[in-house]
């Protein structure tokens, strides 16, 4: 769910050609790639075997090396370099080979079956499909990391994590993905502007629709969103669905339950979005993430819906005096779970099953999740880390508003699992979300089409089914 996009304009010729090749232009290049993946022997771990202790719970061997690959997207990669320093303070004789990229799948997937990196941050638009990684046994369960002692605080690593982090990384009863960031989603506005105009940030749809004409009168569009990536509007739509009908209805959707999309209240939850489009409250144009975020910073729109990586992603162009403030998605009267907040741990690290130095990879994760490491993360990225208390000492309005949003919520977090479970449904829901927000579908049609797509996946025997419990 917490996919931060790449910065725009970073598409290099080489990576595109690699992908073009990978997609099999007339089969030859694809086959070349395929041949790189086949027929390997499971490698033996050569990094472990040293004596285990509280400071070295996995027995990392001195003199070994660990290869860490970091996703260099909206959050940058400076925080990871700080973690390297923290790690080396305890293990001076373990070499950390760190590299960062935006093309995780392009670069790491071909190596998974033979000689993978030890620790991979699987994030961004070019990430490896999580369910496939788990179903194919390509990544290692990390339950022993959770029970290991925390790096620099009392208790275990699991104790030091924010609620939801362990559940978010768990699939089929095992813990596979270590999410290091804690993202909160909602509607952002410029508090300085609202103060100047005497506007109050709405908390309900009614308040928003009442405020919208005043915003329009100032020559601004009330709302803007990324219209080029379907998962952006999908966050907003699912926040509305969850708030209106509550958790169980979304769990049913994730579990492909018969007629789950037809549950009472789902259409009504989406109707305000239909109205928002029909009333022309969106900024004209089909902008992508950075274009829409810049348009919002330029004062062309009053609200934008996106996650907390926003500030770091746009750091270079935020005008002076602009107060980025996050507010919750709007609710409507009668909503069952209006106070549930859309937040999740994200930016997941995985340890490939065939990694040569899994011990050091897990030890490095312990360093990332440390108090010192997570504080650096929050300081550098202006986003919360998934470790408790990371943002307590950071002075920043954007981070503070996100912190307050989570603290003011019900404690239950909005989350949607089916996009991680089923690639087909992921794609369909993105496409249909775009169509709804382009005004080509009504809320009713959106729900009908989602039900059809869900039924199709439910019936397809080639797709391995997943179950959401919590």
């Amino acid at each position, binding site marked *: 769910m917490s996919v931060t996009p790449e910065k725009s304009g970073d598409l290099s*010729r080489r990576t595109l050609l690699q*992908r073009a090749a*990978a997609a099999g232009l007339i089969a030859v290049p694809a*086959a070349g790639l395929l041949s790189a*993946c086949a027929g390997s022997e499971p490698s033996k771990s050569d990094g472990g075997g040293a004596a285990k202790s509280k400071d070295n719970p996995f027995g990392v061997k001195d003199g070994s090396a660990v290869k860490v690959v970091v996703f260099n997207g909206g959050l940058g990669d400076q925080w990871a370099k700080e973690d390297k320093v923290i790690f080396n303070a305890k293990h001076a004789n373990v070499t950390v080979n760190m590299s960062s990229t935006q093309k995780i799948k392009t670069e790491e997937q071909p190596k998974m*079956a033979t000689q993978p990196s030890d620790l991979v941050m699987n994030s961004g638009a070019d990430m490896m499909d999580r369910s496939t990684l788990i179903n194919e046994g390509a990544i290692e369960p990390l339950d022993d990391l959770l029970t290991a002692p925390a790096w620099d605080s009392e208790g275990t690593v699991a104790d030091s994590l924010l609620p939801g982090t362990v559940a978010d990384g768990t699939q089929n009863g095992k813990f596979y993905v270590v999410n290091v960031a804690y993202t909160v989603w909602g509607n952002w506005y410029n508090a300085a502007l609202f103060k100047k105009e005497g506007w109050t940030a709405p908390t309900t749809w009614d308040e928003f629709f009442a405020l919208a004409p005043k915003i329009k009168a100032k020559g601004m569009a009330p709302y803007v969103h990324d219209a080029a990536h379907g998962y952006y509007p999908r966050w907003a739509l699912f926040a509305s669905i969850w708030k209106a009908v509550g958790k169980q209805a979304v769990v049913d959707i994730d579990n492909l339950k018969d007629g789950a999309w037809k549950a009472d209240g789902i259409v009504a939850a989406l109707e305000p979005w239909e109205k928002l489009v029909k009333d022309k409250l969106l900024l*004209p144009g089909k902008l992508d993430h950075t274009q829409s975020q810049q348009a919002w910073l330029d004062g062309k729109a009053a609200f934008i819906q996106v996650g907390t990586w926003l500030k770091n992603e746009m750091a270079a162009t935020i005008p002076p005096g602009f107060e980025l403030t996050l507010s919750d998605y709007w609710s409507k009267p009668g909503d069952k779970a209006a106070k549930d907040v859309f937040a999740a741990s994200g930016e997941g690290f995985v340890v490939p099953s065939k990694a040569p130095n899994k011990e050091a990879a897990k030890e490095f994760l312990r360093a990332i999740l440390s108090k010192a490491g997570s504080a650096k993360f929050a300081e550098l990225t202006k986003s919360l880390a998934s470790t408790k208390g990371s943002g307590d000492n950071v002075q920043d309005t954007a981070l503070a508003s996100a912190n307050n949003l989570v603290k003011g919520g019900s404690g239950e977090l909005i989350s949607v699992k089916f996009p991680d479970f089923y690639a087909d449904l992921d794609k369909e829901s993105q*496409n249909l979300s775009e169509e709804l927000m382009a005004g*080509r579908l009504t809320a009713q049609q959106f729900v009908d089409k989602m039900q059809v797509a869900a039924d199709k996946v439910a019936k397809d025997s*080639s797709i391995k089914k997943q179950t959401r419990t919590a």
Partner: protein
Amino acid sequence: MRHGVARFVTGFLALPVALYLFYVVWPFAQAAGYSLTDWGGYSDSQNFVGLDNYVRLFSDELIRKAFWHNVFFLVTVPLFTIALALFLAFLLNVGGREDRAGIRGVFGSGIYKVIFFFPQVLSLVVIAVMWQQIYRTDGQGLINGLLIKIGLVDADNPIAFTADPEPFLGVPAVLWWLLLIAVWSGAGFYMVLFSAAMQSIPKDIYEAAILDGAGRFHTFFRVTLPLLRDSISVAWVYLGFIALDMYALVFVMTPSQGGPNHASEIFASVIQFNAFQKGQFGYACAIAVALAIFTILLAALQLRITRRERIEF
């Protein structure tokens, strides 16, 4: 062949042939092999499933859609590119006035040649990124910005370009916008190709035709075009390959890569989705193999249809 020469030739050929076999032919065979399995792409375990993937291919709605989109490009990309390239080449070589030095191109044709060829020098990705700015969907886009300024487009309702799935002549608008880029970027190269071919046509044929009273129109259709048949035929095959690909443009230019809502889905984007997002490499290989067979058949057919006796001059 004398003994020494054979050894000499073999010595030179062995390495390239070995490389070719290892890096081209062997992966080809492997892809065909994988297409008979249910390999997911992330492990080395796989089951043999026979022709299941190929059977599934025929009932896949997305592939049917992608097929017709590729057919659209297959017809339009060569047609428009070759027409434009021929037109430009004709003007640059024999479109100008005639004088004592014989027939020549329009004034300044040397400069035009460089300008028209320019897109060929840029990589397709650079072209795509550049056109993203040209096609930008708000007032900051080159086209939208201009049209809004002169009042032809409503600022509240700018052209959506590649985010527009509404059909135009029965084909989603996004495909027409992509076609425009493909033709723009391809025409220059074929213009140069046709120019070279035209220059090898003896000038006296033109002069004879003009003496006989043939105008521009007739010189082009009665003299130039028939004598360029070979070049055009080759160009058609090459452009056919490009039309079956189109991956880079779709990947960079369209929302959700193949969108909006599958309106620009092509073979390559379906392969990409199945292999890398869905984790069904076996099935993706089957699509790729089917596409390869289709391409080879098409090329063979094309060359056969256009085969004719060569005219020597």
